[in-house]
């Protein structure tokens, strides 16, 4: 069953639960990455992501989130064709970035589907659209970092 179909068969509390679960998985991943990171800049970066995803979790209770003025940057698709590493405690920074970017992509798609699903409800539609944009912004940041470090001559 596609996510769209799945959404159609869910009630609102199931939808919120699915979204919170998705955000929690991201928080867990970034917390692990933060613990592994050896310098302050990296820790800070992952802390920021944990904070943002935590804000998302909270926002899902009220369906309100601060609006960004800028549209999300273009999707770089740098990690789209890369293999998804299986989760374990020994992921390298390269693998963490791939896992994270792919996760942001999936989450953005989930929110986009939800925005489409609620196209008739202005508040929910705007909320889920903004959430989708946020996740795409994260994906862009992670992929930029990936390009800089792992494809300097690529």
């Amino acid at each position, binding site marked *: 069953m596609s996510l769209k179909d799945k959404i159609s068969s869910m009630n609102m509390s199931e939808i919120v639960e699915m979204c919170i679960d998705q955000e929690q998985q991201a928080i867990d991943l970034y917390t692990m990455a933060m613990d592994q*990171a*050896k*310098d302050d*800049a*990296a820790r800070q970066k992952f802390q920021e992501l944990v904070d943002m995803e935590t804000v998302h979790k909270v926002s899902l209770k009220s369906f309100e989130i601060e609006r960004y003025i800028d549209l999300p940057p*273009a999707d*770089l*698709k740098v990690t*789209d*064709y*890369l*293999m998804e*590493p299986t989760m374990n405690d020994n992921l390298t*920074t*390269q*693998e963490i970035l*791939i896992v994270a970017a792919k996760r942001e992509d999936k989450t953005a798609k989930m929110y986009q589907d939800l925005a489409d699903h609620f196209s008739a409800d202005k508040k929910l539609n705007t909320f889920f659209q903004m959430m989708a944009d946020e996740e795409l912004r994260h994906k862009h940041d992670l992929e*930029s970092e990936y*390009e*800089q*470090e*792992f*494809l*300097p*001559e*690529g």
Partner: protein
Amino acid sequence: MDRQKPESFNPIPVKERLTIPRQNMPEQDPNIRNGNFLEVNLGLTEDQAVIEAQRCIECKKPTCIEGCPVSIQIPDFIQLICKQDFLAAANKIKEDSSLPAVCGRVCPQESQCEAVCVVGKRFESVAIGRLERFVADYAMQHGNGDGSQSNRPEPTGHKIAIVGSGPAGLAAASDLIKEGHEVTVYEALHEFGGVLVYGIPEFRLPKAILRKEVANLENRGVKFIKNFIIGRSMTLQELFEEEGFDAVFLGLGAGLPRFMNIPGENLNGVYSANEFLTRSNLMRGYDFPEWDTPLYRAKHAIIVGGGNTAMDAVRTAKRLGAEEASIVYRRSEEEMPARNEEIHHAKEEGVAFMNLVNPIEFIGDENGSVVAAKCLRMELGEPDASGRRRPVPIEGSEFIMEVDMVVIAVGNGSNPLIAQTTPEIETNKWGNIVADEDGQTSMEGVFAGGDIVTGGATVILAMGAGRKAATAINQYLKTKVGSVA
């Protein structure tokens, strides 16, 4: 402080100098050299060097010095060439650079000193790199390869270990031995020189140059120990505690191959650039069967990447007999980080360039050998942090091409061994050692510089970092360990 303008030895009026054409360096014919490993560039003749030097217009504010990462006194050495005092010119360069014969060959001059040469604004810039190479070779041939002092200084009694014999380590060793310290270089591989011997091929940088540089340092008292891995054969702590070193310089480089994380990268016939070039250069794969290192002679070899490493690998593949050798690069030629000369030479030698193409999968046969690459076509989008325009995949543009050899040359990471075995050494998230401007790391008495700190960069920057750290080590020995004699 205002710098003193060097005495002029150029008899030609300034206006006339601008009419002198840039002197072309003789080269091996492309169709001959793509079948051998001898050096491509043959060097300027003495006459050519003097004519080229005479093209310098002796600017009041020589921007070329600012363009050089180690501030070589370029106008000064150029005037000494005009004077035909080539040994003095070499010594002038040696004041700021430890490895001019190397830098004259491999520095990206077009984006450094020559990029800001005032003559270059309207005409072709003065060929500073070629002149540097000329005087360095002249000095080597005329027994003054050492370039600096020949008398041994008074021993200070201080012992310094250098880990890694790349340009950073060699430059640090050269400056520290000058001070009278006891200097020992530890190298993991069986030859000294780092990337300069295991990465950059003979046809661009003959190994004999490195051997001479190392022999010079040995003559000056530096001790060299090979096949010795710090972190495995001996730990960093043991260097201090058991071997009695007072300070250590880490010039470990960025030699860890990076892969792309796409399916099929572990098929037979898919190499990292590091492995491929090491097999050819260090293990003399190019001399097979004289040397016992087999390397595959491909029908179609593709090299993924657009840097110097990719150019070295593709030109090596061609020389090893590949029927077709192609660069596969996600961006366009304009964004390639490789030196212009390498791209130009590769083209002349028959290398094909498949730009705006990105492999997304390598496909194998029943024996697990690579037989094809699935690729996507790309288009250029907005610039990224490095200023290069970003490639964006074109939806539905997948295509498959036959290949029987692949070399991945998209970048390198730092080797994690020292960081893993020495928790006191702080590293950043990419595994690079964290060091300040002077190379001081988080561990007392331990300094670091070159690619291990910056990530993959250039020879001249590594050399400059080694020299800076040497100055800091001297200072450290004076203040912390006890006065230097």
